[in-house]
């Protein structure tokens, strides 16, 4: 197990390094650095450019150095928790983001939880009642869930809420808590408001999970040991839970690797559409104004969320399934 843990940790760190290089390249992609655009913009408006500030920023980011040095400078800052400097807001990134990172994590985590909690009973039901009306209905629903892109679903819900209740549902907490320090009341309010975005983001993931669990469980149920068990007179509930369900559960847990990037992607765009106070809308704004350091920090954060999530789920899976930790191989 320790061996597996070490190897998995190493791969995770390597992945993160590659990702950081990738994100850095993306930050550097727009022609010219942000400062030159900034100066040009100010000058076109006939404003004086504060030479000292420019010089300060140039040094802060080592924009006069080679790209490789700049990269190490940037990464060193990241590791120490210095997320960089937002040019648009003229503030350090860490001050701009506030508790958005935390809310993003809460949102994504709740969505994953929602997907598992909802898809598990439905998947088991569909498999044990194959070709029943309930199964057909749920399959159809699942297909629709898979085909409706989540940001369109968010738009539809916003529209319906606007017509029926005349209110906007695009918020993560009641107004009185915005900008307030965390308290029980605020946490509860966030939980209440989470429901709609979680359902919107989780729909397609849930549909996919149901299909997968159903297929896995059906495969298991057709095996001979199940027939043997039934012939020996095991009660149906025990016959289902004791072995087939446990076998079908492994791929179900392992699939978080496919699901996590999808959920994070979904949460970004749904947050942008519903203007939730998570990283989504801010990432979008940063990208639109080519405030690349802010955007880069968000990208790194989102990637970190996925990679660490997958790492944890892999450890969980290894604890569940001795085959994985003994062979030491990566899953998939």
């Amino acid at each position: 197990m320790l061996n597996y843990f070490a190897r998995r940790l190493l791969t995770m760190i390597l992945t993160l390094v590659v990702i950081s290089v990738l994100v850095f390249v993306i930050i550097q992609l727009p022609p010219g650095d942000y400062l030159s655009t900034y100066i040009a913009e100010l000058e076109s408006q006939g404003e004086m450019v504060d030479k000292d500030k420019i010089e300060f920023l140039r040094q802060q980011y080592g924009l006069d150095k080679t790209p490789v040095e700049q990269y190490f400078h940037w990464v060193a800052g990241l590791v120490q928790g210095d997320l960089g400097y937002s040019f648009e807001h003229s503030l350090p990134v860490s001050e701009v983001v506030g508790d958005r990172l935390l809310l993003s994590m809460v949102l994504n985590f709740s969505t994953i939880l929602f997907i598992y909690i909802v898809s598990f009973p439905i998947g088991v039901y569909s498999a044990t009642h194959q070709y029943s009306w309930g199964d057909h209905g749920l399959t159809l629903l699942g297909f629709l869930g898979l085909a409706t892109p989540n940001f369109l679903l968010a738009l539809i819900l916003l529209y319906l809420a606007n017509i029926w209740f005349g209110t906007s549902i695009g918020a993560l907490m009641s107004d009185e808590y915005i900008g307030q320090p965390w308290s029980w009341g605020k946490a509860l309010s966030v939980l209440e408001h989470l429901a709609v975005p979680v359902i919107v983001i989780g729909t397609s993931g849930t549909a996919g999970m149901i299909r997968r669990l159903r297929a896995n469980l059906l495969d298991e149920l057709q095996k001979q040991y199940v027939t043997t068990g039934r012939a020996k007179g095991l009660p149906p509930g025990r016959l289902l839970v004791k072995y087939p369900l446990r076998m079908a559960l492994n791929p179900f847990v392992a699939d978080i690797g496919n699901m996590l990037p999808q959920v994070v992607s979904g949460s970004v765009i749904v947050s942008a559409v519903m203007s939730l106070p998570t990283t989504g809308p801010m990432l979008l704004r940063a990208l639109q104004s080519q405030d690349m350091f802010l955007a880069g920090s968000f990208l790194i954060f989102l990637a970190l969320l996925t990679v660490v999530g997958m790492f944890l789920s892999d450890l969980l899976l290894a604890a569940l399934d001795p085959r994985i930790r003994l062979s030491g191989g990566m899953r998939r």
Partner: protein
Amino acid sequence: MSDTLQHFVSREPFDIQDIERLTPEQERYYMASQWRMMWWRLKKHKLAVTAGIILLASYLSIVFVEFLVPYELQTRNTDFIYAPPQQVHLFHDGEFVGPFVYGYRYHLNMEHLKRVYEEDTSKVQPIRFFCTGDPYEFWGLFEADFHLICPAEGGTLFLLGTDRLGRDMASRLVYGGRISLTVGLIGITLSFMLGITIGGAAGYFGGWVDNAVQRVIEVLRSLPELPLWMALSAALPVTWSPILVYFGITLILALLDWPGLARAVRSKLLALREEDYCSAARLMGASPTRIIGRHLLPNFMSHLIASATLSVPSMILAETALSFLGLGLRPPVTSWGVLLTEAQNIEAVALYPWLLMPMVPVIITVLAFNFLGDGLRDAADPYD
């Protein structure tokens, strides 16, 4: 058991090969090529066939967009801003008139400052077919003004209403299909080529090539796609022309989409390269490109096509999402996502719900590709 069995001898001439001869149906079945059998299998899948026909029709319509729709992409009808959809009627006062629409009666609600359009049942505006109307440039090649349908002389024909500039939504929707549908097709072609080349190299050569490709795939797949797409398309230079941006976006979509396909190709090739016919080809001096392309890939081309079909929707959706967020295509290029940007303002949508219409073709296309892909995947293995 004393009594002997009844003896029977058939007087028919005996043909030794009779037992091995095939009935015409069997012969047709056994002699059919793989692709023909797949076609038979696919034909049985009613949903897939329907989806295929819908897709074929939409892709055909791309070619003749200008001719099919009543209005040109940018025609502004300034008297009809945010006009609601006009319904097509057949009977007026119990009399058959053929397809027609009623004109609008317009007044400004001074209390809410809302534009109010009502059906004016005294204005009967018969729809004209094969007529001359809005002038357009066919694919930017030559000018024409011949349309399949046009509004009545001096009348209007807004089947899906108009937007904030008084442009006909229905026409713009069909124009948008030209961009949205081709983005998916070009994107998948690019990612198909990338996937086959990279996956092929990894599977055929194995060793360190395989290892490197595997790691890259792992990294790419552990990244949330959409934020990366957003970042890459935000990094496209602002100075690029719309056409360049269009190709840039397709390239970006393809750049992140190939790992799935590459992985499929790799795992198949790893098994197939040990086959005897592959060694034979190698001994005869065939180059790796020839062996992969000529001997190995055709083995599972059908599977690849099926999985490619299944990944077109994600591209179309990605383009829609990017354009919707304002990071993808920009006007004057008009895709469904660009049309949906009008729906970003939820207050406007509450008043003018037809702004959400571009969703419908998006969902239909996505569903159709999914059904067709499912059918193709089932048909890809006609021998089981």
